[in-house]
């Protein structure tokens, strides 16, 4: 696995709505510095966090009540559309404008398209209506990860690791012992694993009040390059939907700077939604499990980074979804690079 460049023509989770307000927030996304803020009408804006004057980070500047952004190095000022409206030094205004990124804000999430704005297509976003559906409740946040995006992607597409990495919470032998079905739909990769009559892992025992044996389903969908949705169903064995407990986990796997990744998460459930104690417990567990992943991925990152020649990897059948995920991302990247190449090659002119 050598992929360290990032696909830019795709939606990434850029921020949770409640992270972004009238202050300037910097976040690197696919190696691009981005400054998020809200205008007075509450619409969210994301601009490249490099002043067109001498590249000072705009996020170190100021936002006034009218929504004018000022660079705090030499005083360039930009209006709500990112157009330079003046600078302290001189009366005429410099010709400059900020690069603004396509954004979609819905259900408490801010999605950003760091690539070609022409290609930004909202219909590529997954359904996240459960984040605001009144019959669901969820917790969310973001965890910093010092490992490349691809490692996180493979971690999520191969949940077999739960057996080994999360044995005290969500994993047990049943996970690794149950094969997955992998499906591919265009760029999308999905997998499903149905564990029937298994021992309930501790997390599910506690969060659903179930005792073994249980049926547990995992249906994961990867929306490349950076979104993963896991549907979880747990039920006393033999009871079919809708008797089960439903949970959903959304992961925004957003490449940051270099081999760093923002690991956004939202964990939702459709039962006992008013039970604050359960919410607290689930959030704690989610973070504990993610920490186990973060520790593993950061250890793994060092091994990939120090082995640039790439000793051969060995793969097994349960890697199939992750391997397909890799291919999906590699293909998107190749497509993007081809398009850039085409754009750079001057079109041949008819000779006169």
């Amino acid at each position, binding site marked *: 696995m050598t992929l360290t460049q990032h696909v830019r023509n795709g939606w990434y989770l850029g921020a949770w709505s409640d992270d972004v307000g009238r202050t300037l927030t910097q976040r690197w996304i696919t190696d691009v510095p981005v400054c998020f803020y809200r205008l007075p009408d509450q619409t969210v804006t994301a601009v490249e966090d490099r002043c067109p004057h001498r590249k000072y980070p705009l996020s170190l500047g100021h936002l006034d009540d009218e929504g004018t952004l000022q660079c705090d190095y030499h005083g360039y000022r930009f209006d709500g559309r990112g157009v330079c409206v003046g600078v302290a030094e001189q009366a005429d205004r410099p010709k400059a404008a900020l690069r603004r990124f396509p954004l979609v804000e819905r259900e408490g999430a801010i999605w950003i398209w760091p690539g070609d704005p022409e290609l930004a297509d909202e219909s590529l976003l997954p359904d996240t209506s459960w984040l605001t559906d009144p019959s669901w409740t969820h917790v969310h946040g973001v965890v910093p990860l010092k490992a490349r995006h691809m490692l996180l992607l493979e971690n999520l597409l191969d949940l*077999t690791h739960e*057996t*080994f990495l999360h044995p005290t919470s969500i994993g047990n*032998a*049943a996970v*690794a*012992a*149950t*094969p997955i079905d992998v499906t*591919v739909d265009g760029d999308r990769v999905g997998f499903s694993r149905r564990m*029937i*009559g*298994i*021992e309930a892992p501790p997390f599910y025992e506690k969060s659903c009040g179930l005792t*073994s*044996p249980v049926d547990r389903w995992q249906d994961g969908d990867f929306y490349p390059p950076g979104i993963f949705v896991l549907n979880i169903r747990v039920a006393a064995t033999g009871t079919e939907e809708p008797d089960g407990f439903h949970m959903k986990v959304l992961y925004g796997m957003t490449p940051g700077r270099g081999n760093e990744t923002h690991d956004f998460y939202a964990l939702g459930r459709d039962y006992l939604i008013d039970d604050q104690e359960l919410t607290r417990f689930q959030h704690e567990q989610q973070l504990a499990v993610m920490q186990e992943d973060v520790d593993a991925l950061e250890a793994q990152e060092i091994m990939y980074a120090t082995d640039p020649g790439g000793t*051969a*990897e*060995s*793969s*097994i*059948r*349960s*890697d*199939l979804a992750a*391997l*397909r995920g890799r*291919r999906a991302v590699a293909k998107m990247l190749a497509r993007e690079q081809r398009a850039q190449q085409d754009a750079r090659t001057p079109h041949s002119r008819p000779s006169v």
Partner: protein
Amino acid sequence: MTSPSATAPDTHPLGSAAAATPSGTRRGTEFEGTVTVLARQAVGDDVVALKLVASSGEPLPVWQPGAHIDVVLPTGATRQYSLCGPVGDTAHWQVAVLREPDGRGGSQWIHDHVEEGGELRVRGPRNNFPLRPAARYLFVGGGIGITPLLPMIAEADAAMAEWSLLYGGRTRSSMAFLAELESHGERVAVRPQDKHGLLDLAGFLGDPDPSTLVYCCGPAGLIDAVEAHCADWPAGAVNVERFAAAAVRQPADDAAEQPIEVELRASGTTVTVPPGLSVLKAVEQAGVPVLSSCEEGICGSCETSVLEGEVDHRDSLLTEDERAANDTMLICVSRARGGRLVLDL
């Protein structure tokens, strides 16, 4: 049961220490011809055992535990089934066939069409899963994966080795050969999943012990779990035979069992790939370096661009669209329809 390694005898399953039989010793001891079905018997839900004799009346070749034969169906497709009768019996062979509704139709055909007195074309035996001598054996069988273990157990027993078997299946009634296995008493633990849940591999396998060999055959998940459990066991201690993904790797038609010509355009050379050899191996033997790792059609490292010819895809990785595009192939397992390929190598 089928054995994926049978179609690519030069490779053996990832993580398995099972050595392939050297190809030289195979010739001459193989039978290829017609057998008559002497008996057909239901031995579990959707499992039939077939007792076969050579139609000519000749004795059949001897075989060793772990061996399988190819059954060549009238459709041209080939399926592998482990031999599971008594090893010394050269008059009869026995195989057991599970009806796999989700498979590619081979086992269904056998269930629906093979009657007592009927004939089948077979080839073999070959052994990619040989039993090595040891003081103690732990056998783990899942479902129809019990078949290669039966003669192994008989041999271990005859050699007075210490052994035990953990046998899992969906339900008790789906599990074949229970009566004869249970006659071994304590050594055999029968654990249908509906009663006992997943197999207690940790309890059964325990800690590594240098005198012990593990033999496992069954669904991929079970094998993965056994391999995972034994990850830090000595090399060679764990021997597995996979069959779950085998359907993908069967030849699509008779033509696939013919030698193929592969032109390596970039190197300006052409190699002939005989049926038993993978394109990968043939290319390597021609001195052209190629990357490979799993040699099972999983990892994608041997992916090669196809310039001409129609690919018979037998890997597990490519998607339907990628297969249909016919512009790339995993040369460790995939072959050609129509006898010829041009690769960008």
